[in-house]
């Protein structure tokens, strides 16, 4: 994985000192809250429902065991012994003190981490495929391109006061594991005539106006990648709406201009920029690539797995994924125990995951946008030892991509924007399906819950989505069906009137039962929904 050199380290250290100075000026009253707010947000510091919340960047979701240990230490030293892994492959701490925030950032900088641009109207942490470098179906490892863009977007002088936040995802496989087309810019590394290039999808997003990004350029040569991104950002910075916060994302600009006119504006800007020396030399991309070379996989590693223990065999079937190296898999550590809080991990669990990564996965971990953790490179021969350790720490739930593997935003339990709680709904649904035994039969069923229209819980992209709303001061939940964040991307539709908390759990089970009744061979929930449409579900729910 990427390691800082003296330049990267100096930048991060300078940012810590800048923030220390800004926090001091705020505490001394030299900055008003209105002036301080965008500055703290650009360092990931929110004022949330109960306290300050700090969001730490995990670039493209990749970290090593030393970094995971540092995250655990921070949870103990500055917070209350836990953290929350998010749908942007980051981690959030919920109980941070402003007077200690700079010290926390200094501790992060010691392990080449930061909270830079994890909030604010700027280019956010760049996300990627959580199986990058391990997946058997990828063209190349997408992370070098994400890292190139990370550096370009960090402290960008022109694009730090954009109309609204800006999210970029980079993938390099036809299988989309990063919700690429639901980003402001989604980049897929592709091959044309033997040359690598980047397809640009621009103007996707969730939030209150969900949109799927159209492809505005199917091939940008790799030695023009940064320049093309710069051209997109300049068009957005100049013309994105600033009169209405809810219409300020680039998706609205692309939609209002139309894809063709928008693309033309970008192409004109791109043509002007070509001689401006914006693009780093190709040698820089080559330098970054050297950090992402394959680890030394053991030649001839055994393909055998002793499936004698049925609990272990179930976990292997559910939570391990094909790897490009023979004898290896990627193993998913579920942060979704039945009845648990999706994405939360205690400091002890973080330390265990770090140690297991060191022992079994070439020192590497990944954060998934589905709020789980991946050990990307595990020998099949080590799986039983790994599972035994995980299971003993409450980390062995065998539920990847099942109805128990729920994405949930923090919701009204933590978030000042939320209208309803998300976590208790997730807890009750996972308990319901663990108890009724339908999880296995349902197979792949992606359930995603947001506590407000901002859609941090990706409800638009759920096979089943749930949106919490405020109905006259009472929590109410709308049910959505038919969304997908993957390569078969689609936006979920609302079934009808909402439900109370108990009602939404019943409604999810009703929808699941319709699928079990109607499905044909090999169909997932999503496939059946797409075939039979909304009506049979509505009839069962409201009939």
């Amino acid at each position, binding site marked *: 994985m990427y390691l800082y050199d003296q330049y990267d380290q100096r930048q991060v250290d300078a940012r810590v000192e800048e923030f220390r100075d800004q926090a001091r000026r705020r*505490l001394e009253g030299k900055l008003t809250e209105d002036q301080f707010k965008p500055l703290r947000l650009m360092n990931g510091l929110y004022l949330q*429902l*109960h*306290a*300050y919340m700090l969001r730490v960047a995990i670039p493209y979701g990749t970290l090593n065991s030393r970094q995971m240990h540092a995250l655990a230490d921070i949870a103990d030293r500055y917070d*209350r012994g836990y953290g929350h892994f998010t749908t942007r492959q980051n981690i959030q701490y919920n109980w941070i*003190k402003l007077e200690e925030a700079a010290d926390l950032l200094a501790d992060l900088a010691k392990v080449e981490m930061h909270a830079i641009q994890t909030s604010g109207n700027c280019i956010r942490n760049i996300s990627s495929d959580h199986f990058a470098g391990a997946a058997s179906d990828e063209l190349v490892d997408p992370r070098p391109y994400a890292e190139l863009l990370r550096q370009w977007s960090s402290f960008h002088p022109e694009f730090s006061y954009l109309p609204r936040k800006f999210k970029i995802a980079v993938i390099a496989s036809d299988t989309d594991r990063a919700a690429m087309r639901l980003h402001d810019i989604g980049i897929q590394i592709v091959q044309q005539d033997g040359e690598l290039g980047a397809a640009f999808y621009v103007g996707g997003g969730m939030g209150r106006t969900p949109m799927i990004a159209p492809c505005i350029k199917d091939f940008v040569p790799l030695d023009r990648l940064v320049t093309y991104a710069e051209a997109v950002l300049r068009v957005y910075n100049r013309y994105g709406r600033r009169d209405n916060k809810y219409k300020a994302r680039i998706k609205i600009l692309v939609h209002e201009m139309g894809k063709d006119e928008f693309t033309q504006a970008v192409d004109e800007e791109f043509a002007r920029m070509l001689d401006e020396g914006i693009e780093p030399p190709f040698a820089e991309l080559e330098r970054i690539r050297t950090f992402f070379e394959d680890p030394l996989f053991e030649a001839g590693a055994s393909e055998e797995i002793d499936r004698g223990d049925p609990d272990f065999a179930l976990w292997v079937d559910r939570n391990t994924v094909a790897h490009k190296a023979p004898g290896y898999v990627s193993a998913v550590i579920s942060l979704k125990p039945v009845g648990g809080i999706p994405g939360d991990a205690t400091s002890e669990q973080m330390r265990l995951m770090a140690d297991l990564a060191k022992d079994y996965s070439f020192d590497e971990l990944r954060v998934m946008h589905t709020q789980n953790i991946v050990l990307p490179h595990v020998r099949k021969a080590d799986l039983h030892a790994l599972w035994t350790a995980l299971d003993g720490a409450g980390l062995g739930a065998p539920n990847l991509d099942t109805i128990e593997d729920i994405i949930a935003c923090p919701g*009204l339990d933590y978030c000042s924007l939320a209208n309803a709680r998300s*976590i208790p709904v997730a807890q009750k649904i996972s308990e319901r399906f663990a108890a009724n035994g339908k999880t296995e039969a349902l197979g792949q069923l992606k359930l995603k819950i947001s506590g407000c229209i901002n859609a941090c819980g990706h409800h638009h992209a759920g096979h089943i989505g749930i949106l919490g709303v405020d109905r006259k001061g*009472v929590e109410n939940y709308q049910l959505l069906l038919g969304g997908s964040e993957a390569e078969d991307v689609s936006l979920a539709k609302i079934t009808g009137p909402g439900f109370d908390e108990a009602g939404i759990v019943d409604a999810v089970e009703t929808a699941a039962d319709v699928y079990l009744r109607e499905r044909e061979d090999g169909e997932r929930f999503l496939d059946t929904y797409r075939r039979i449409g909304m009506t049979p579900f509505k009839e069962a729910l409201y009939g």
Partner: protein
Amino acid sequence: MRILTGNDLKTGAVTWWTGQDWSLHVENAVDVTGSEDEIARREESARRVNVPYAIDAELHEGKPRPAHIKDRVRALGPTVRPDLTLKPADPDIGNWVI
């Protein structure tokens, strides 16, 4: 009644105006009807509170209870982590929130 809340500037903790000072406990909050803007302005400029604002509340067993669920969650702590709330030992506190 109207009660005044905000966050402690240094720690971020949720606080409530008691008439003299800021408390972590909503039951110490006092009615500020008519003077909410003046108190908020004065306390914020003295940096004894960050982004204060007034909310509706009603008396519940003689103590102020915020009218909206969001403010009740704010007053107590996350309902899914009772161990981290201000009333970790009260088994009935969920009824007060919801």
